[in-house]
């Protein structure tokens, strides 16, 4: 048993280094950067299934006029759908640096699933609506932090539809139409 633990730990360490190394060279070059490359750790020449991966989460900058990335490491799941759900849960947990959260505290991710056309459906608890502080910018930041985070980390996801308690909703707080799936935006740019 302790041997297994040590091996797992070693594997984990290797992955952290591998991801860190690749991330260092690739990470800053592109903004928005492409989905995080799948990393494979090599141990004694044989590939080992990595046990964690890095994801980029999008939070609000202090002036609330755009989104910015923060990195997290999440354990690998049985499928990317499970990883996508964990990633959104990390987003809900909020930022660790000086960025601002985009999702009201206490919100839970009920489910996440992906259809054959690359649309991810993320189902949240009612709090996403009832505890939302409102404001067009507040609502846009909430929506696009979810959409950008999912599309940036999972190449299988092209668009994201937000559900509340299993159902389609008209808006989160009275502004943005949430009846349709959203494509990523990677900024909340000014038109002029």
């Amino acid at each position: 048993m302790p041997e297994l633990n040590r091996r797992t730990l070693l594997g984990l360490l290797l992955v952290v280094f591998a991801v860190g190394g690749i991330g260092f060279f690739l990470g800053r070059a592109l903004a928005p950067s492409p989905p995080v490359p799948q990393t494979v750790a090599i141990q004694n020449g044989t590939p080992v299934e990595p046990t964690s991966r890095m994801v980029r989460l999008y939070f609000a900058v202090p002036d609330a006029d755009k989104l910015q990335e923060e990195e997290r490491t999440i354990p690998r799941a049985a499928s990317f759908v499970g990883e996508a759900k964990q990633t959104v849960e990390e987003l809900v947990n909020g930022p660790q640096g000086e960025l601002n959260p985009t999702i009201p505290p206490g919100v839970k991710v009920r489910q996440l699933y992906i259809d054959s056309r690359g649309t991810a459906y993320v189902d949240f608890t009612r709090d996403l609506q009832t505890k939302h502080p409102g404001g067009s910018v507040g609502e846009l930041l909430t929506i696009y932090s979810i959409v950008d985070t999912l599309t940036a980390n999972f190449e299988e996801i092209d668009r994201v539809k937000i559900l509340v308690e299993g159902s389609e909703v008209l808006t989160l707080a009275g502004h943005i139409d949430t009846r349709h799936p959203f494509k990523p935006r990677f900024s909340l740019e000014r038109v002029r």
Partner: protein
Amino acid sequence: MRKPFVILLGALAVVLVTRSAWTGEIEVLYEGRLKVLSSEAINGRDYVPLRQVAEVSGGKVLRDGLQVGEVAFRLVEGEAGVVVGDTTFLLAAPPVKRRGAFWVPIEFLVRALEARYGEGRVYWNKGTKVVWLGKDRYNLRLLRHHAYPDHTRIVIEALAPLNFRLQEDDKARLSLRIEGGILSPMLSEAVRINDGLITMVEPTQGQGEAIFRISRDSFGGLTRTFALTNPDRIVVDLYGPESGINRPPATAQPASTQAQAPSLSPPAGLETIVIDPGHGGRDTGAVGPKGLREKDVVLDIALRLRRLIQKRLGIRVVMTRTEDVFVPLEERTAIANRAKADFFISIHVNAAPRSRARGFETYFLSREPSDSEARASAIRENLSVNLGGLKPREEDALRAILWDMANTLYLKESSELAQILLEEIDKILRVNNRGVKSAPFFVLMGAAMPAVLTEVAFISNPKEESKLQAEQYKERVAEALYAGVARFKARYERRLGVTPPRSGGRAAEAAQR
């Protein structure tokens, strides 16, 4: 007479429900057999072992799912999405594993039985926990409805193409009769709509047909029915009455589209503006750190703006609300469309949690999602062009082209209006200018006219909240918005080459309102 019966029925239901809950059993009736599955409540939902599902559906348990005939269901522990071929469907709860074996929520049982016996044959009563195969297959799956600015759309999803006809029983009631239609158990109750046009739809199973009785709120009005495929759907569009009843009394224009065929008289100037104070009633909008409510501030500013426009420009101002009431978003654009307004301004204040954000910004509708049915429908139906004399196909094509042009024009004008308002606010308020942005705003979606949304300050910022409490500041905000409206009007009319008749009775009449 009826009461004892209801009580008896209730008692029976209680007995049935409690019995199942105690024993944890789900009864499956199929091919003359009764099979009792042992169920277990997991996270408040009924689960059955996958092995037993395989037994009743004649399937085979795989390492990663279930094979029923040609159909393979791929399951992943803890994930609600089930992959079938190249599609995925969603269960209400994910499969779980007990001692290495899958347990699945009861809906999965229904799906597995459908794979064997065909879609439309498997019935399920949640209350009594009985699953059975119906003698007849149902072919009408569910009913949806949506309120558009000028009509209500009712959609019935079918499992096969069916013949149907819509008949008028009397002025307030219509019947949609679907030949050979069999209602699913989901369609056993009346659906209350109450959207101002339709009160409710009651599905009833008749002999060899299904009947949907549609009760209208108001009398008469155009109807349109058509079928769509993949999946098969029957669509009923119900419009409001043609002559005035559903319109605000202020509207003076003739109602029928024919009467508004393009004429050779010079185009009129800008005549009607709709001001939409955001939120209201039970929807307070954003709330400032000291408790100032968005719904109150924006109504105050909107009423000031109305006064300024009426006094100085003399054009007609229509408000979506003038007091603290809840007005649904669809209704706001519907008001603007019915008033055939020239443009629409929604007034809001902004919020961003825990941020130092301050300043103002203006928005217009982004192209995403450009295929928005609501907007397409609104614009198409508000196009007042007489297309008489054309073949139906040509008419459709022409409408599509006109719609596209109108949409492009409205977007262009909306972005100009957003820019002009931004510049005027910048000049007068001299606070942080956050620019013109675009986003898919619900309230702008159905507007068949240039439409913008302004966020005049951050109520979440303590300094800006204090400013918004001052009468003087609110007046300045209204002045800034007024300056934008006046400039847009002048520019619009210059471009159209109009010298608007401002001396007429209409202006004077509007000024009095």
